[in-house]
């Protein structure tokens, strides 16, 4: 707290390390791909391709918060639920809405099953979900009868992957609806900052400097505008993007603002103390995994719709992407800390690396090496920097 500038710079660097890393990696690949990465089509696909990771990582974050616990079964649940949807809609010709509801219930039930063992019987999550990973992969293949099943039902696709098309706005090459959404969102962000500052000033609470607050919200607004501009140049806003953004916002709200969300941090920080504070810790574990099942189910539907078909290996290693995003995004491997914002950054970092390397024509093999390296590096940085600040 000496207040000298070099000290603050160090603090700034550690605090925003992942954002800085994201920016650096982004520009690195933009440069290496001669700007191909920045094409509207690629930027649009960046979020859509990684949408499933983001959705699952939100659920995975809750599990990890409870004490570094992970759910290995989500990839298999994607296969099971996606397969169920494909079979019911394509082979049996059932209407999409009831099928979607049924599929989400199946996802939730899977979560409830695992959550029960983990929360109330205290079977280690690693074992429970490792079992689940095998069981649900197997059940998924049984449902699919080990075949690839396509989904072409337009109603189903409209709910998950179609691009929003408002007549009169989106008829031309430039999709105006995307631009309008971008402008509205940007204005909302700036107004919100102004309102927050005014309220805090009125109540006499501590304020960040006006400069940093406005710079921050200005940057975010500009970024949003730019991204929406890119979307408007390609095909507009996809319904899937709406799903992903909605999930991220909801889980950000839950973890950051609600008492319920805070209990996950408390359990991960010190379970005994949390229990003695009158919180039902078993229930927190249970809900973390039940919720994970539900989100994995949703992910199965999104995935089935985006790919257009489901087979026995759909969803393979999705769990690792979700877990990786959480840890790259600064979630503690011991639980108790992490945020949805961090998770989004982690997922985007992985996504940009994947896409950039694909554009450069580097194969799977190198992508694995780089992804693993980034994961390890991020966690090493996190551990070492928190040790330096005297936390560990």
């Amino acid at each position, binding site marked *: *707290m*000496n207040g000298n500038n070099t000290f603050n710079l160090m603090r700034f660097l550690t605090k925003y390390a992942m954002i800085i890393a994201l920016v650096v990696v982004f520009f690195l690949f933009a440069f290496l791909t001669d700007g191909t990465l920045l094409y509207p089509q690629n930027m649009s696909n960046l979020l859509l391709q990684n949408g499933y990771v983001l959705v699952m990582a939100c659920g995975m974050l809750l599990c990890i918060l409870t004490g570094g616990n992970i759910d290995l079964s989500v990839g298999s649940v994607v296969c099971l639920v996606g397969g169920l949807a494909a079979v019911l809609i394509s082979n049996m010709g059932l209407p999409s809405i009831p099928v979607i509801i049924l599929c989400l219930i199946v996802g939730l039930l899977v979560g409830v099953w695992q959550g029960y063992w983990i929360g109330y019987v205290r079977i280690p999550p690693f074992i429970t979900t490792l079992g689940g990973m095998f069981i649900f992969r197997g059940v998924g293949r049984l449902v699919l009868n080990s075949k690839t099943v396509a989904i072409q039902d337009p109603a189903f696709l409209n709910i998950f992957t179609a691009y929003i098309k408002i007549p009169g706005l989106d008829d031309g090459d430039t999709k105006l609806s995307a631009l309008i959404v971008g402008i509205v969102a940007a204005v909302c962000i700036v107004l919100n900052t102004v309102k927050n500052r005014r309220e*805090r000033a009125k*109540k006499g*609470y501590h304020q960040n400097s006006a400069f940093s607050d406005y710079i921050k919200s200005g940057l975010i607004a500009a970024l949003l505008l730019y991204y929406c501009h890119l979307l408007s140049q390609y095909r507009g806003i996809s319904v899937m993007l709406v799903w992903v953004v909605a999930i991220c916002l909801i889980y950000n709200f839950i973890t950051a*603002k*609600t*008492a*319920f969300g*805070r209990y996950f*941090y*408390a359990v991960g*920080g*010190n379970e*005994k*103390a*949390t*229990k*003695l*504070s*009158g*919180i*039902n810790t078993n229930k927190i574990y249970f809900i973390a995994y039940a919720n994970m099942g539900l989100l994995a189910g949703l992910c199965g539907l999104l995935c089935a719709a985006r790919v257009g078909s489901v087979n026995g290996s759909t969803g393979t290693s999705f769990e690792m992407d979700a877990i990786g995003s959480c840890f790259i995004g600064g979630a503690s491997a011991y639980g*108790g*800390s992490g945020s949805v914002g961090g998770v989004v950054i982690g997922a985007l970092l992985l996504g940009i690396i994947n896409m950039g390397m694909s554009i450069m024509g580097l194969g799977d093999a190198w992508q694995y090496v780089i992804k693993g390296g980034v994961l390890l590096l991020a966690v090493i940085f996190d551990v070492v920097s928190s040790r330096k600040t*005297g*936390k560990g």
Partner: protein
Amino acid sequence: MANVILEMKSITKEFPGVKALDNVNLRVESGEIHALIGENGAGKSTLMNVLSGTYPAGSYDGEIFYEGKLCQFKTQKDSEALGIVIIHQELALIPLLSIGENMFLGNELKNQFGFIDWDKTYSEAERHMRQVGLNESAQTLVRDIGTGKQQLVEIAKAFSKEVKLLILDEPTSSLNDEDAKMLLDLLIAFKEEGLTSIIITHKLNEIIYCADKVTIIRDGSTIETLVKGVDEFSEDRIIKGMVGRSMEDRYPAREHNIQPEINLEVKHWTVHHPLYPERVVDEDISFYIRKGEVVGFSGLQGAGRTELAMSIFGNSYGTNITGELYLGGQKVSLKSCQDAIRHKLAYVTEDRKTNGLILDESIRFNTTLARLDKVCQKGVIDGDREIQVAEEMKKAMGTKTPTIEQHVGNLSGGNQQKALLGKWMFTEPDILIMDEPTRGIDVGAKYEIYCLINQMVSQGKSVMMISSELPELLGMCDRIYVMNEGRLLAEVEAKDATQEGIMGYIIRDTNKE
């Protein structure tokens, strides 16, 4: 006689932002017991870590002379090689390994093939265990012996390293009075054999009992060294050195305004061990606490006091709990901690680090945890309101910290205890169960905690105070219950009670069988 074994000269050690030690000097003569005392955070442990090489030479300024030679230890191994052994407050034993394995961990006795020589390990281990009066098999798992014996294992381990200078960091903080006395007697016996020891402790009576000299450290500097037989060597004199003023009365005066209404009453309370349900931990216990009353619970470790308190607090300990609980005259049955909190009961744990606080979270987070609903609207936390109440609690408790966003783990013991107390005061309890409320905190902070307790009872709250420090119970309580081996032995008025009287109950009961 004046054979100086250790001399530390103008030791200065800085951490980023703080000067932990400032020109500290320490002279220890061969064959003496030298006590080191100071408030929490005064720098005692830092000094010992400098000595043992935990902070390597070069990371501090100053010189260390050991047996007349200038020493620059790079690691703890270097200092151990010369016979300096430090035993930390938190015992470094591995519960699932045997005593013998623990004693030679990292130092294994090997045969000519380089494999561990188990026969030699166990026979050597037992030889050293006999030295410290520990009659156990070296193959017993550390998990299966009590804390007192574990402490002895640590000392036996030190002997296996041919210790010349033994450093004990609060060796008795987790021991009951009887075990503590045994340990101190052991040190005195070793002194006769020429062993030098440095003992860090908060317990003044122990210093008076066993030490030849005491060096007082305050705010990272050595204040003075008192020598038994030369200087005045009394508790009051030492306290004066520690706090820089004499503390007339260690327990703040209080107006006794006990009201006739009974706030909490327990009848025929019996609790069984959670893992071995056939074992009775508390047997047929009945007691009551009036409004505005501080009631003490005295007893040795394992008397069943914590278990009693936790089983009352929403069955948070034990199985097959039977008995009746009345709160404000109403019979209640508390099934969970949440129930207990709702019925305005609070349990301030004896173990703030494991059971009380979330160390990696802020004071603000910890303050509101048990009653988050109070700062919530429809489940959404009102962040501004939370900051406000956390600030209020911090002020009311007198927690010393620059900001409520400070992680609790970074606070000193006394301030952690205040943060914990603030957390439970935020639940607006009528009855506070305080389990060892001043364990491991310094004299100044203790006084402040006592003041807070007085303030609570003056508001008509009731306090159930569990403590292993008899003077504290006598100084603070209105009535005292004496417990031993899960049974309630006696009830005494504090003003008529003496330390000898209470210990007498316990000793007679223990020796009855």
